[in-house]
Every structure is written in C-alpha cells, then in structure tokens.
C-alpha cells in the first residue's frame, strides 16, 4: 500500500506531488466554501 522510497529525491517527489494536488483542491474548496458562507447575504 505505502510506496517504498529509496532516495530523498523519490520521497520529496512523491510527497510534494500529493501536497501540491491538495493545495489546488484547497484553493478551490476554500473558494466554494466562501460562496457557501456568504451565499445568503444578498437576500
């Protein structure tokens, strides 16, 4: 299940890739959440 890393380079490439995908998801998610949070202000 968990990947095996032989070098620091392997480890960094793997974790950084996962992290940057999560960063993108976070940026989108926070925007959507903000819309949800302020959605009824216009009423």
């Amino acid at each position, binding site marked *: 299940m968990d990947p095996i890393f032989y070098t620091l*380079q392997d480890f960094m490439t793997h974790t*950084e890739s996962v992290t940057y995908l999560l960063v993108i998801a*976070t940026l989108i*998610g*926070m925007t959507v959440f*903000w819309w949800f*949070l302020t959605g009824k202000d216009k009423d």
Partner: protein
Amino acid sequence: MAQVTTGERKSIFSLFNFIALIVLGVGVYLTYLRFTGGLASVTNLSDYNPWGIWISFDLLCGVALAAGGYVTSSAVYLFGMKQYHSAVRPAILTGFLGYALVFLAINYDVGRPWRLPYPLVVQQGTTSVLFEVGLCVATYLTVLFIEFSPAAMEWLGLKRARNIPIYFFVTSIVAGLSMVIFESTLSHRFFAYKMDETHLKEASGVTLGFGKAASYVLAGYFAIKVLGISAENHWHYLKTGYGTWYLVELLGFVALPSLLYAFGVRTKSLTLIKFTSVLAILGVILNRFNISLVAFNWQLPAGERYFPHWMEIGISVFIVMIGLLLYRFIATRMPILYEHPDYKDAH
C-alpha cells in the same frame, strides 16, 4: 481627476518616448545576448566578483523601493493614520513594481533562472540561506500582488472579486473570534443591564460576523493541518491510536465547528453560533492539551505518564476565577459595555 475625464491624449512622438524606445530596443538585444551566450557574454562578473551592479542596484535598491508600500499601509491600516489614505495605492504600486522588477532582475543575475521554482516544487534546499531569501521574496511579492489587486479589479470592472483581499485581511486578524462570541454570550446573560442601546443593537451583528470569520478561519486551519500531514507524508500515523485521537480533534473540533458556524451564519441562528463557539473553544483547549500533555512523552510506560495533582488543578481554577472576578469588577464599573456619556463618538 480632470485629466481622466477630458480624455486628452498627447502625441506618442515625444522625446521621452523616443528615448524609451531606444532603451527598450537595446535592452531586448542585451537580453538576447544574456540568455543565448550566458553571463560571461554580457557581464564582467567572475568568481572573485560574483556580485555586480545587478545586485547592488537592481536588487538592493529595488527592495528599498518596496519599503514605501508596507510603511504607508502600516501607517494607514495598522496605526489608523487615515489622513494618508490617498498615499496607500501609489505606495503599494511602487512597492509591487519594485519587487516585481527585482524578481525580473534576478532572472538575469542567477545562472539558471529556470531553476528558480526548484526549491518550491522539486526539492527543498533547506540548508541554503538563499532558499529562505527566495521564499521571503516569493511570499512578499504575493502579498504585494494581493494588496495591489483591488486597483486592477476596479479597473477591469470586477466588483465582487475586488473585495477578496479585504476578506482575507479581515479573516487573518480575527483569530480569537470564538472567545469573543462566548464572552459576549456570558456578558449578555449577566451584564445586559450595563449595555447601552448601541451595544445591544450591534450584538447580533457581531456574533454573525465573527461566526462567519471563525468558520472560514477554521476551514483554513483544517486545510493547513491536512497539508501538514501530506508534506511530511505522515498519513500512516492516522491508522494508529494516537492518529484516531488526532482525527477526533481535527474532525470533531475543527471541521465540525467550521460547518456548524457556517450553517449558523446561513440560517442566522445566533443560538447555533453561540453553541459552536463553546465547541471551538473546547477544540482549542483540547489541541493545547494534546500537544503539551497527551502526546508529550507518549512513549513512556503508563505508570510514568503525567496526570495533574488536584492542587495543580486547584491553582488553575483559582487563576481562572481571578480573571472572571476582575472582568466582573471592571465591566460593572468602567465604560466597557457602553459608551461613557461624556465621551460619545470619541472612539
């Protein structure tokens, strides 16, 4: 203002524009030489003199230019010197351009500028001082871009998008929001007779506004925590007993209050927001306890683990009680929950 509305345009064939054209033309040619022939083709830099005019002038002077941006915005927004408000935008624009041009100049000065994103994306050069410098420049350039963006948004007619940096600014200053909501709940229960009309009228607005900000801050905090696990690749710890407890904190006392605040704000339910503030405060307390007690020395055998003596707890309760009594003493005597009649509108 008059210059904008008259729409008068000078001829583009001016002396300044002529000089600018020459400078740009020469610059483009030198850029071509620099990036095809390398540093040696356009500079006198050597191993003895690795820092030249690009560092002295472009970088160090460019950064100094940017100081006007934070000095002026601190004066106006942090120290409340509103009389300088009109100077903020020009100062931030100067700062933003100064920093952006520093970045441009660095691309010329470093040997392989296309490797600039490497420390952020490919490999962290955490032993390099320049990694820290690069991170600072990138961060401050981002901040200046956000600070400057309202002007660009207004120019492009993007009214709603224009407000985003202000929301970011507000959410960043409000970290102790839940405590304010909770404290205000208690004050309303026990000191309502002390409150003037303004205070009572604004109270629900304060609760709703602070609840909204708290919801968003908690959501951001949740995201940072998840990114923290990912950056260290610590996912496997979540399967352990401590990991489960960590998830209880993260889901039950961060994600849940964030959502409950959001529902409370959307349905304008003050009761839900006030209840959530207690949950959020408990979450902060749980977090501090988890860090400093529960997970601290976790590998010790059970018999060696710490649990406070009742007298330690007694002192802690004593100190909290002093705080409550001082608050009551002050709030029932000084003008805290109302404005002093002699000093109306003086704040």
